[in-house]
């Protein structure tokens, strides 16, 4: 009997969060046309309500493990966690963006509605990757996220650096997508299916028979390179600093998290779910990539004077830590395998602290200052609360207890040690020690340097609320990480891990 796609009766109840985001995106487009420009503040609230609704609905899918659209779409515990991260990051991005986009911090006004629509589609794309059951869906979701990101990077369309960053990001991203899809094609050629579970099953019998084709290794290499571009792993990171620096700061905040989460979700779906039978061929590769990435990102960040660029390199460093979690995959018995749960938890932690750091940069820019280290001088005496918030984000990124970044790092180290990868654990702490240099530099500027003459002035309630929420998240998501970790640990039930 020939396979056919049952498009007639898909189970729409499984895709409610995604539908909500899609609906909000379409409503925003509509509202842009109907509402007068003066009332565009409503759009922010529409986005926030939509994202929050999706976030709440998402929790009803905990423990659900079903597929629909003929296996293309999965609602399982991995998609639940990815949705959680993406939607939380989305809410924070909106809070950070609203005043920046409206208040003309850039040379030319930026249309709020289009901004939010692009943001929503990007979020939707990341959610689709997280829920993908098929290579095609992975690619679709990644491209959806990426295309919106390219546009958002160049959103300050009258500023040269914004356009330069966007173009660089676009060209290299396109290149990466081509490599990725080429890898997928090879996989399809080797296994005869694009379904993730199908690939795993096919590989299982191939590997079981003891003949691993060279074509599979080529495919693996292409996939790792393509995904490496998406998550900004060294040596595929070249676009990151320029894109982060050029993009409007709220976009940098969003871009440092959501497309990256999409990339890591794709790694989970492709490497962990589909290619787990050949895990021995990729874990070491990813482990080495992780060490190179964390070393390079953290060391180069030390030389940066521009805070946005510094955060770009720091985010490369964090990519390294997250990759270390992947490298620990599949050594311990599945029920105890902490590798992917540490990755998922790290992504959540990272989204709080990293968007938070960019939010403070946005806050400083709002008050007419630049994004260099000197622009943070004396912030602690002029605006103590902001300085405290930034200090918390910096220390969290550094991995200092009791903040969320420490817990995230601890779980990755734990996963690495459990997988007997002591060298990886040592690399993580050495890289963290190096990272202390540049994170501390921001704190030093804020607390130990003399402030400039003029005090920062401005009123950004939405941004302030966002910062408050992220500070709370950075402190509490760590101390009460038990339940979040349990939720992430459910990943082992999401699909039968074939070893």
């Amino acid at each position, binding site marked *: 009997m020939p396979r056919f796609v049952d498009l007639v009766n898909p189970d729409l109840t499984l895709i409610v969060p995604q539908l909500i985001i899609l609906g909000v995106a379409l409503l925003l487009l509509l509202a842009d046309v109907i509402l007068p420009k003066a009332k565009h503040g409503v759009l922010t609230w529409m986005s926030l309500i939509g994202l929050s609704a999706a976030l709440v609905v998402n929790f009803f899918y905990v423990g659900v493990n079903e597929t629909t659209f003929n296996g293309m779409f999965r609602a399982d515990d991995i998609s639940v966690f990815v949705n959680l991260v993406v939607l939380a990051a989305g809410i924070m991005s909106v809070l950070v963006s609203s005043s920046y986009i409206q208040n003309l911090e850039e040379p030319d006004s930026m249309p709020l509605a289009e901004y939010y629509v692009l943001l929503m589609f990007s979020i939707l794309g990341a959610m689709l990757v997280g829920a993908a059951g098929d290579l095609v869906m992975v690619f679709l979701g990644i491209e959806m996220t990426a295309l919106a990101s390219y546009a958002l990077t160049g959103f300050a369309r009258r500023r040269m650096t914004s356009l330069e960053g966007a173009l660089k990001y676009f060209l290299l991203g396109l290149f990466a997508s081509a490599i990725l899809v080429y890898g997928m094609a090879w996989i399809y050629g080797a296994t005869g299916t694009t379904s993730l579970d199908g690939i795993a099953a096919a590989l299982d019998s191939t590997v079981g028979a003891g003949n691993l084709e060279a074509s599979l290794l080529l495919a693996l290499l292409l996939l790792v390179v393509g995904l490496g571009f998406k998550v900004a792993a060294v040596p595929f990171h070249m676009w990151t600093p320029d894109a982060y620096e050029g993009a409007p700061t709220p976009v940098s905040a969003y871009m440092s998290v959501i497309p990256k989460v999409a990339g890591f979700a794709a790694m989970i779906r492709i490497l962990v779910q589909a290619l787990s039978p050949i895990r021995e061929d990729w874990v070491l590769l990813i482990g080495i990539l992780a060490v190179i990435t964390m070393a390079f990102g953290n060391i180069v960040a030390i030389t940066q004077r521009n805070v946005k660029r510094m955060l770009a390199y720091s985010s490369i460093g964090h990519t390294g830590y997250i990759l270390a979690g992947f490298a620990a995959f599949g050594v311990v018995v599945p029920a105890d395998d902490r590798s992917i749960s540490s990755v998922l938890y790290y992504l959540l932690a990272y989204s709080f602290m990293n968007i938070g750091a960019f939010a403070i940069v946005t806050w400083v820019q709002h008050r007419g200052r630049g994004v260099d280290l000197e622009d943070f001088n004396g912030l602690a005496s002029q605006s103590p609360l902001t300085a405290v918030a930034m200090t918390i984000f910096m220390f969290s990124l550094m991995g200092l207890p009791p903040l969320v970044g420490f817990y995230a790092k601890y779980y990755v180290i734990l996963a690495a040690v459990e997988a007997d990868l002591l060298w990886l654990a040592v690399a993580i702490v050495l890289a963290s020690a190096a990272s202390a240099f540049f994170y501390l530099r921001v704190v*030093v500027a804020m607390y130990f340097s003399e402030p400039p003459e003029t005090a920062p002035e401005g009123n950004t309630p939405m941004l302030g609320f966002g910062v408050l929420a992220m500070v709370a998240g950075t402190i509490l998501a760590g101390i009460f990480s038990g339940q979040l970790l349990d939720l992430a640990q459910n990943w082992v039930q999401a699909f039968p891990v074939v070893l």
Partner: protein
Amino acid sequence: MDNFPILSLITYLPLVGALVIFLWANISPDATRKVALGTSILTFLLSLAMLANFDTSTSEMQMTEHLTWLPGVGINYDMGVDGLSVLLVVMTTLLSILAILQSFAPINKRVREYFISLLLLETGMIGVFLAIDLFLFYIFWELVLVPMALLIGIWGSANRVYAAVKFFLYTLAGSLLMLVGIVATYQAYFEETGIRTLNVLELANGNYGQNFQLWAFGVFFIAFAIKVPMWPFHTWLPDAHVEAPTAGSVILAGVLLKMGGYALIRFNLSLFPDASLSWAPYIMVLSVIAAIYGALVALVQPDLKKLIAYSSVSHMAFVTMGIFAFNMQGMYGAMIVMLSHGFVTSGLFLCVGVIYDRAHTRDISAFGGLATRMPVYASIFGVFMLASLGLPGLSNFVGEFLAILGAFTAYRWAGIITMSVVILSAWYMMWMFQRVVFERAAGEPRDPGDNAIPAVSGASADVPPPGHPDTPHEATVPNLPETHVPSDDEILAASKAPNWPDVTPRELATLVPLLILTVVLGVWPQPFMDVMQLTFEAILAPFGSVGV
């Protein structure tokens, strides 16, 4: 009192005080000081209650608290106190009061942040001594870093930023490696027993392989040796001490260094007994080097605080020496040196703070003649100085004597060599004291009987210099009898050096408690040793060499 969480209360009360100051909008500097002082006094009283309830007839952890926290990864909220930690906690709460009291007058900028930092620091320090879960311990251990770095970096002296960053990075780098050690120990214990735990009492039951012990001991040791600080990991200490405000130095010397010594006993000895034995000779060598090196470098310091900082390196070497002698004398010695160093060196830093607040310099050569101008101060300073160099009857003597005795029993050569350090410490301490307290300061006449005195006497200041056409030269001189020997008062009046007031009541209030404790511990150490005895016997049991 069984279920009353007194340990958590002691730990978090300062945090509550910090939050009150943080959340109290428009709090005045004066109210800030009062809240901070009140909180620290309350904490101290609670810690006294803990001490009163402490049962010296058991070596078990007491007043334990247990909360399930992150069971999936073996992390629990476990607090407890035993003979090793109980006195250190009380010392911490006491020194915190003194540090806060000391800061009342000298700290005038960003008062709010200052006291928030001090209180946060107190929470971190108490937590370090009370946590018996490794993860919890690590959290408190790192929590201490940030407020201390802020204290140095904001309220310190000229080169403060460099010192703050160096302190932060140095200690962070050390403790990060320990984190890998913690996780690896957890994993090794899990593989052996199938139990996921980070409780140090349970982990101590594990039988770890020799190789594992050797390197795990190493990463723990480096983290703690940096804190102690042992030669060659000490370079952050002189910078941090010199630049820190007085209260920062007091806390740094009084408590932070003790965290290293405490942690060596609590973790290295109990978790890795085999490796402790293998490492001990090397640590002994390092200790001997540190004791001599610290003393020699202290000898040539022109800066008061730097001198005391290097003397700390020397004194703390007695602690590591006592610990790794693996006998009761050594243990007692290590612990009493820690307590005594907490009282004496904090007292010395407070003394330096007193004159720093008046002179705004720490240069030894800038001082002199304090014995006549600030007699009360000079005598208190003198007692601390004598205590520091190990005068019998004062606290340091007891500790250093026992530590040397312990080391002598275990490693004869180490005991013999470190004897000489006591002579060195007498040298640098008394020489410093002579220059600061007894000698005439610059601008003062060298000798009371010197003929040059009339020329600089106060009366001549109003008179135009000799040779002026309007006033004959002879007019100034005949007023003075030729054989006049000026009294102290006259010399003071003659001195160009400013006439500083003697210690204020507040300064006295910070110094006297330490003075009393120094004498009590020196004359009657038995009650202190009773508190520790059973705990130390239990700790030393695996080493099979319980002495005394």
